[in-house]
């Protein structure tokens, strides 16, 4: 049972974080490159937090996040290029296309009870398949970047002359994703996903329809990332088959794992820390010695996994409990 005081402190901390997130662009806004970096970090936060629904809660090691991002980007981008569709609508359609694809794959996958490693590898292969398909599909993709039409500062076309609006868009999406995560964990679906993520047979014996639950998790996950894909395309101003990036999809899953399985803010924390470190290293030493930043990053990653197998979030939980629980105990006495 959480005490009132806990809740107040929690809310206060969250508010502080939010204010900080809101004013970041005002601090670093003069340097567009830095804004792009911070936005990238947040984008990984969005993806890893969405991943938490399928990976953290439902325990399915999904490695296809960039497949959904790419599908969202291509849908929204192509509609924009071809039919001058507003990306605001395009990104929702992109989300739906991602969901359609996820169901197309998810229904047989769960039907044939493909689990653990084999699920991971299938989804990993999916990203690579889409990459090849979009490279060969000249009408939509092709080997050359397709640029979105240029409008300077058009809200309707989601084209801005600066990265700052995209930062706020991604931040807004992040809040939505966190809220969805939070809502799910408080409802029947969340409890069912947690249970089946730990033991499918035991969950089924308690009346959990594991197939339907996993599909529902997949739908939330793919839709949220598909929507992010729409913003992604507009932020970079082009679409390209390299958006289907197997390596980065694996990274998103790793962020989810390292953050702490099933802890809603864990993946976000991992994204902020690890991607933050990575992007910082890339920006500071990446230009001089290529590869060095990745060496450092991967060593940090390995150390975190070895010494915090239950997740980065547990470090903060520990600190938090030490700070808060002491007061609570006094109250109890």
């Amino acid at each position, binding site marked *: 049972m959480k005490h009132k005081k806990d809740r107040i402190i929690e809310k206060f901390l969250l508010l502080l974080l939010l204010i900080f997130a809101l004013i970041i662009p005002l601090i670093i806004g003069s340097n567009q490159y830095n804004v792009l970096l911070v936005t990238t970090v947040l984008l990984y936060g969005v993806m890893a937090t969405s991943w938490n629904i399928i990976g953290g809660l439902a325990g399915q090691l999904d490695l296809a996040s960039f497949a959904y991002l790419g599908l969202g980007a291509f849908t929204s981008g192509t509609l924009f290029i071809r039919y001058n569709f507003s990306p605001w609508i395009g990104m929702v359609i992109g989300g739906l296309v991602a969901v359609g694809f996820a169901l197309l794959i998810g229904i047989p996958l769960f039907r044939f009870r493909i689990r653990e490693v084999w699920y991971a590898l299938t989804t990993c292969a999916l990203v690579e398949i889409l990459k090849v398909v979009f490279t060969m599909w000249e009408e939509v993709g092709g080997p050359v970047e397709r640029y979105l039409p240029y409008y300077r500062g058009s809200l309707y076309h989601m084209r801005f002359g600066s990265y700052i609006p995209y930062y706020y868009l991604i931040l807004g999406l992040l809040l939505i994703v966190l809220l969805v995560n939070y809502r799910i964990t408080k409802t029947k679906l969340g409890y069912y996903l947690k249970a089946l993520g730990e033991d499918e047979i035991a969950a089924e014996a308690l*009346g959990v329809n594991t197939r339907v639950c996993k599909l529902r998790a997949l739908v939330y996950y793919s839709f949220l990332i598909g929507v992010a894909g729409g913003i992604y395309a507009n932020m970079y101003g082009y679409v390209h088959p390299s958006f289907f990036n197997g390596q980065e999809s694996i990274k998103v899953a790793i962020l989810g794992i390292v953050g702490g399985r099933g802890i809603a803010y864990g993946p976000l924390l991992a994204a902020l820390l690890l991607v933050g470190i990575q992007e910082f290293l890339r920006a500071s030493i990446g230009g001089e010695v290529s590869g060095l930043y990745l060496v450092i990053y991967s060593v940090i990653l390995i150390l975190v996994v070895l010494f915090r197998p239950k997740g980065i979030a547990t470090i903060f939980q520990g600190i938090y409990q030490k700070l808060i629980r002491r007061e609570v105990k006094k109250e109890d006495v």
Partner: protein
Amino acid sequence: MSNEQILKTSKLTKSFGNLIAVNHVNLEIYKEEVVGLIGPNGAGKTTFFNLITGLEIPDEGQVVFKGTDITAIPPHKICQLGMSRTFQVARSFTEMSVEEVIRVGAYNRKKEKEVQEKVDWVIKFFELEDIRNYKCSDLGLASLRKVEVARATATEPDLLLLDEVGAGLTSTELFRLMSEIKRLNQETKITICVVEHVMQMVMGLCERIFVLDAGELIAKGVPSEISNNQRVIEAYLGRRGYSESSSAS
């Protein structure tokens, strides 16, 4: 005990390769009774449970539950129909708290608004208040077993199947668990079927007993009949001829 049948199996058969784990088993369980299913190790008790709960599909035969044929229906549907079970090897949700686990069970029948009430009732009934926020990975075996029974009870079953809940418990723990199961049957009128090889538990708890040996139903009756049944004694102690030949080889 009423005269209305809740579960009936006919000619239930399952084999794995050359081994016939369950062989033409016909049995029936009546509403509101506590029955026991006993037999030596490898007699096919767990397989029998797996067959009636949909975890495994029988080669032959039929399972009828509350008048519905449930042969080869997936486990979650069987649970929704009102049959719930525990597992011999505790299958616990290690990262979830006791309360969360029970909540998973309670969602089977309850809507979002009534679920907490049910959870509280189950926790109170099984006296789990002290450990309700503990993670399952932090629990001892006795508490784990109790939580398993509790979460299965939370699904509001008409028939509750308990697969060796007493295994590995000390006799005091066993006695307490037994009395809780008995109380559950008396207060809620849930029909209970226990699989055991701890004879003491079955004899004290059950109104009727079925005995399986090598996949076949060799006896059924009230405890006193069973404990004097020659075939049952043979099944447990081994036939004289059999034990001689096995010691010779």
